[in-house]
């Protein structure tokens, strides 16, 4: 710099400073015109230093404050929020990416906040919209973070026996060898909008722990009619064994599987299903002895497809059965279900064999809507009876010593890849509860990606891991 151009530099500096001041004043003028957010209103009303906070539950105020990461556009935010059935109440322009959000489902704000917090690629942080008050010493501080919050255990008396959902290491188990249900339930506990078909021995739809979660044909859905079989007043589902409408379980196996998926949760009774709320549709094709024919399986699947086409939101079929018998017809029926957007979860089998070498069906059908499931014990080891397959068995799930609903209002423990399968079906239902429009392809992808890698499962199942419900719900 020399004496000749020093004044040029001083002039440029003055211009820049003046420009910054002008822009700052413009922002202040804009702030003066914009309505205050709830938070700013509340802060303005408070006098002195607040010594406690309470959550805002007013209908007129947004429930959650979310700060999105740089680069997340308003369009992306609007779409994401709408997908969660929420509404953007306000964007706080002074803080980049900060948005106040209304939840339209009347969910707990902490749960809504946790849902956004879990979206770690899009969200910096999220927390409920606290109302700042004076003189309430017992409330939580604003700085509290929620990533590690878990729902308290449900009050179902047998929940302590459900190691698959929450394994604290007792009873010879390994702590953490579970599907992490408590953390998952912080995001969703399921939905009555999601129908899961249990293709099995039927379901005892009068069981006290299932009755509230049974699918009942809505009045606007016509009765089932089959060209060859005739018409059925299908109130609860379908019975292909007797070509009848009543899918009452005479064996117990189907009732057990149904309980894993959707026994009513937190009802001071029995167990908690992975979905505290759901709609279970029994498709009975296995008889009292626990076995059935391929033809009856196909007829029952046909029923589910028909109901789907008539508007019933059947999204998942849980199939805890199989054999070494290949059937092209059954494969085609399952494919047709997939084309209607139905995910098909199938047990890998209990022969302790390698399904890559000795196929087991229907789990070995190489279809885009089929997930094959191996069974684990409470230490995350492959159960001694479980089939496996590096190429043909997709995931592993808890399947040994599983307590669930049984006939005559009872509960019992059972083991098998039969028991592992509904754990995966249950988690798939949680995903659908949160993302109603997810395609069957994406649903399968998400289930398979949502695993905890287990060294012993490397080379045994495609995903190399145990399903994790909390991971399945995190973006």
């Amino acid at each position, binding site marked *: 710099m020399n004496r000749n151009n020093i004044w040029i530099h001083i002039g440029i500096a003055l211009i820049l400073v003046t420009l910054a001041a002008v822009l700052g004043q413009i922002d202040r003028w804009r702030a003066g015109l914009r309505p205050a957010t709830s938070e700013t209103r509340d802060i303005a009303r408070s006098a002195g230093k607040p010594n406690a906070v309470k959550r805002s539950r007013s209908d007129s105020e947004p429930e959650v404050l979310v700060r999105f990461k740089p680069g997340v556009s308003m369009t992306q935010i609007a779409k994401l929020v709408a997908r969660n059935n929420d509404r953007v109440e306000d964007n706080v322009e002074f803080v980049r990416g900060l948005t106040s959000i209304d939840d339209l489902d009347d969910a707990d704000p902490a749960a809504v906040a946790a849902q956004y917090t879990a979206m770690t690629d899009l969200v910096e942080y999220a927390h409920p919209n606290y109302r700042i008050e004076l003189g309430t010493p017992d409330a939580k501080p604003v700085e509290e973070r929620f990533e590690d919050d878990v729902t308290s255990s449900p009050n179902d008396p047998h929940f302590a026996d459900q190691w698959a959902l929450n394994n604290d290491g007792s009873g010879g188990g390994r702590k953490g060898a579970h599907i992490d249900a408590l953390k998952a339930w912080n995001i969703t506990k399921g939905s009555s909008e999601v129908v899961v078909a249990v293709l*099995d*021995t039927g379901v005892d739809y009068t069981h006290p722990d299932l009755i509230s979660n049974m699918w009942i044909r809505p009045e606007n859905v016509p009765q089932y009619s089959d060209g060859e079989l005739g018409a059925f007043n299908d109130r609860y589902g379908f019975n292909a064994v007797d070509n009848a409408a009543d899918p009452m379980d005479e*064996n117990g*196996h189907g009732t*057990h599987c149904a309980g894993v998926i959707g026994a009513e949760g937190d009802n001071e009774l029995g167990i908690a299903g992975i979905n505290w709320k759901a709609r279970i549709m029994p498709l009975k*094709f*296995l*008889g*009292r*002895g*626990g*076995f*059935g*024919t*391929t033809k009856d*399986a196909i007829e029952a699947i046909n029923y589910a497809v028909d109901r789907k086409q008539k508007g019933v939101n059947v999204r998942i079929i849980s199939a*805890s*059965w*199989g*054999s*070494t*018998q290949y*059937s092209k017809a059954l494969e085609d029926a399952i494919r047709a279900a997939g084309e209607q957007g139905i995910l098909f979860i199938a*047990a*890998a*089998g*209990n*022969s*302790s064999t390698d399904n890559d070498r000795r196929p087991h069906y229907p789990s070995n059908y190489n279809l885009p809507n089929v997930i094959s499931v191996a069974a684990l014990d409470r230490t995350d080891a492959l159960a001694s*009876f479980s089939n496996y397959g590096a190429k043909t068995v997709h995931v592993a799930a808890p399947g040994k010593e599983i307590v669930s609903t049984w006939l005559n209002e009872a509960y019992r423990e*059972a*083991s*098998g*890849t*039969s*028991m592992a*399968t509904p754990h995966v079906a249950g988690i798939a239902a949680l995903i659908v509860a949160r993302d109603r429009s997810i395609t069957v392809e994406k649903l399968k992808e998400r289930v398979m990606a949502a695993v905890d890698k287990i060294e012993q499962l490397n080379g045994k199942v495609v995903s190399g891991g145990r399903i994790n419900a909390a991971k399945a719900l995190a973006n």
Partner: protein
Amino acid sequence: MSFDKDSAVKRAKQDLAERLKLNEDDIKVDSVSSKEFSDMSLGAPADGEMAAQMIAYGWQISLGAGGKSYDYRADKYQLRLKGYGGKNHVIVY
């Protein structure tokens, strides 16, 4: 109808006597043991059959006649004969 161990053995003897056209007194009970089966086909699936993949508890019944052994399996709801004439048979369910 549901089985217990004794009624399962009795029905198995009756079935084998009919198949072999013998008197039931000619059928010997070689052994009866409690058994854990890998699934609800009791390890003896019939052709084209699908079975629930739950560990099932029942009995393995070995009957003898004419110097040969015959393998029956039973649980509360069913009785099966394994490998007779190259096939598995469901006798009662």
